């Protein structure tokens, strides 16, 4: 219950404003090479390793169970290149892409969530709550329904939709500066309008497109192909390192715009590039697997807690997001077997109670 970031529990959520860097214990090892130096948080590294290992284990488990169970040893053998007749198709074509897309999308959502929550300085500022993923979905549905686009076209549509909705929400929330709660509420309102537009697109569409669009809109990992794997891992390979490079600016912005500018950050440019990377990560995640609810929202705070750091934990959030998505997908497949639920329902069942809990906690600390 007590926030690990804080000195006094009562002041929990304000701590990142009040605390100054010199009051924080400096942890981890500093790696220096000439004029280059970087601090490596040992605890964060450990957390990432454990989360990564867990994701791999759950992923293997997820590949082995199903209507046609395959022993884990056989799964490992198949992955290492010694497939049996059955396992090659089931593992290689059906279940492996599904797990990979799940982990990749979860990582993308997790990073995007961590970036936005830190920029907005509020856990409610994650892209799935403030309407960005809805915008990306609208873009993707439009390309499916109107242009009958390929997987690549759908990604482009999702990215454009995400960027436009982010811009619109930001501008609509602007009023002598952007306040966190106005941004969140404007985002919720925009989300409703965008969902209505999506529903309208679907009523106008051909039945074949409707099927393709609706399966995808529920945030499902069912029937993911290697195309989707490519989209999401390409996104991670390009945008992930960018996000990690921007961590430094993000930490400085967390001290307040004026302090950040004093520390040599070009505030406008830094914010813009962070928003761009965050929106792109969320949009490409949406393009690959649809809007999986609440992953971006829960990953950042969980990562912060695990790492026990006041900073935005972009990399640990990616690992948390991957683990959450893979576990949720396994649960969605197995809880009510043989019926498969879309993973988005499972994540909403986890995320919505967490949101309620967060609200009551913020209310108790008098923040809301």
């Amino acid at each position, binding site marked *: 219950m007590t926030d690990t970031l804080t000195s006094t529990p009562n002041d929990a959520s*304000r701590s990142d*404003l009040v605390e100054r860097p010199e009051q924080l214990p400096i942890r981890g090892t500093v790696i220096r090479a000439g004029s280059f130096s970087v601090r490596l948080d040992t605890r964060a590294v450990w957390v990432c390793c454990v989360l990564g290992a867990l994701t791999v284990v759950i992923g293997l488990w997820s590949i082995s169970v199903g209507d046609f169970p395959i022993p884990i040893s056989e799964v490992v053998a198949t992955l290492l290149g010694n497939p049996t007749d059955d396992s090659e198709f089931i593992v290689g074509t059906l279940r492996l892409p599904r797990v990979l897309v799940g982990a990749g999308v979860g990582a993308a959502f997790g990073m995007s969530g961590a970036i936005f929550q830190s920029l907005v*300085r509020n856990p*409610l500022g994650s892209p799935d*709550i403030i309407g960005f993923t809805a915008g990306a979905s609208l873009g993707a549905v439009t390309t499916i329904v109107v242009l009958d686009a390929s997987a690549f076209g759908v990604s482009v549509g999702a990215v454009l939709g995400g960027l436009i909705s982010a811009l619109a929400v930001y501008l*609509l*929330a602007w*009023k002598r500066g952007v*306040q*966190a*709660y*106005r941004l*969140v*509420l*404007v985002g*919720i*309102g*925009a*989300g*409703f*309008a*965008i*969902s*209505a*537009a999506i*529903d*309208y697109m679907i*009523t*106008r569409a051909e039945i074949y497109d409707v099927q393709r669009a609706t399966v995808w809109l*529920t945030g499902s990992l069912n029937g993911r192909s290697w195309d989707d794997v490519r989209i999401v891992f390409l996104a991670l390979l390009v945008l992930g390192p960018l996000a990690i490079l921007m961590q430094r600016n993000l930490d400085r912005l967390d001290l307040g715009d004026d302090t950040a500018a004093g520390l040599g950050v070009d505030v406008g440019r830094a914010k813009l590039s962070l928003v761009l990377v965050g929106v792109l990560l969320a949009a490409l995640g949406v393009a690959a697997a649809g809007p999986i*609810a*609440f992953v971006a929202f829960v990953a950042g705070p969980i990562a912060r807690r695990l790492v026990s750091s006041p900073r935005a934990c972009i990399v640990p959030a990616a690992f948390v997001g991957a683990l959450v998505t893979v576990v949720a997908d396994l649960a969605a497949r197995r809880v*009510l077997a043989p*019926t498969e*639920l*879309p993973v*988005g*329902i499972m994540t*909403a*069942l986890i*995320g*919505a*109670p967490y*949101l*309620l809990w967060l*609200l*009551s906690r*913020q*209310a*108790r*600390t*008098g*923040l*809301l």
Partner: protein
Amino acid sequence: MRTSVLTDQRPHSDSVTDPGPGVTDDTDDGRVEWTTSSRPSAARRSMGIVLLAAAVGLAVLLSLAVGAKSMPWSTVVDAVMSYDSTNTDHLIVRELRLPRTVLGLLVGAALGAAGALMQGVTRNPLADPGLLGVNAGAAFAVVLAIWGFGITSVSGMVWFAFVGAGIASVAVYVLGSAGRGNATPVRLALAGAALAALLFALTRAVTLLDQATLDQFRFWAVGSLGGRGTDVAGQVVVFIAIGLVLAIGVARHLNALALGEETATALGTKIAATRTVSVIAITLLCGSAVAAAGPIGFVGLVVPHAVRAWFGPDQRWLLPASALAGAAFLLYCDTLGRVLARPGEVQVGIMTAAIGGPVFIVLVRRTRMAQL
């Protein structure tokens, strides 16, 4: 720096100079009383009611006359006045469009009044049965009824919808007002969004489990007035009527409550009783509306705000006017939805969300939201 302007209903010292005692007065909860000078005259209000009634009349005519099959006005009038059961056009008007119009009137009136009542009792300008998860609660209960008990008639569903709406409205208020201070608009809106997301996910899970439920639920879930059959309106009209009567009955006490709890008690209003009756009325109105037409959002948000601009904050005028305006608004949305996607139609729930989302943003952007 991090407190929202939204949560602060006090006039800001930089924007409003102190008007002195007797003109406006900060009550105990930081709300500002309206001044007598801003109260619209009785003539203006009566005129407003007449205009609204005319708007409802026009909406009914349009709803009867506009649709996938276009027909001359004279045919429409004939179909209502001198019905000929062998005439196809007459059949369309009498069997399809008339029940739909009646249902739209009832559901719109229920949602408009429920929205005004919710905004009054929570003193929260962002209150709406859809936004605060009440409709989602009723919808989940109805799906459970279809799935678990095999109930197919609206008269059976409506009881489940009441239970769902009642539990959800109490839950969201408790969740939103837990902790320090009163339930602020932001807290309630967020608690409602979270509750709605949770209930929606549960609803989806049930419908995916059971193909038969999904089939029944598919069109109902979007919020639609079409294809409901002729008897649906008859099955909910009594409940909506009771809800409206209760709502108008507590209007006077809601006016007192708007002055702050202590002032209201001093004026002889029983606060707990007022809230209980209001919740019962909201439950009846929302439950009936959801059971009959599915969850339709934003009518309860948009309508009372528009009505308040003309009628002022007096609940005794606001509630009936919101009921009338809600009926007209829903019928216009439904008719527009039929025109936009000919020969198919856009469900009315989609139309109201498309209009309501932007209105919600405008409300959020206002620094000082409308005084209730």
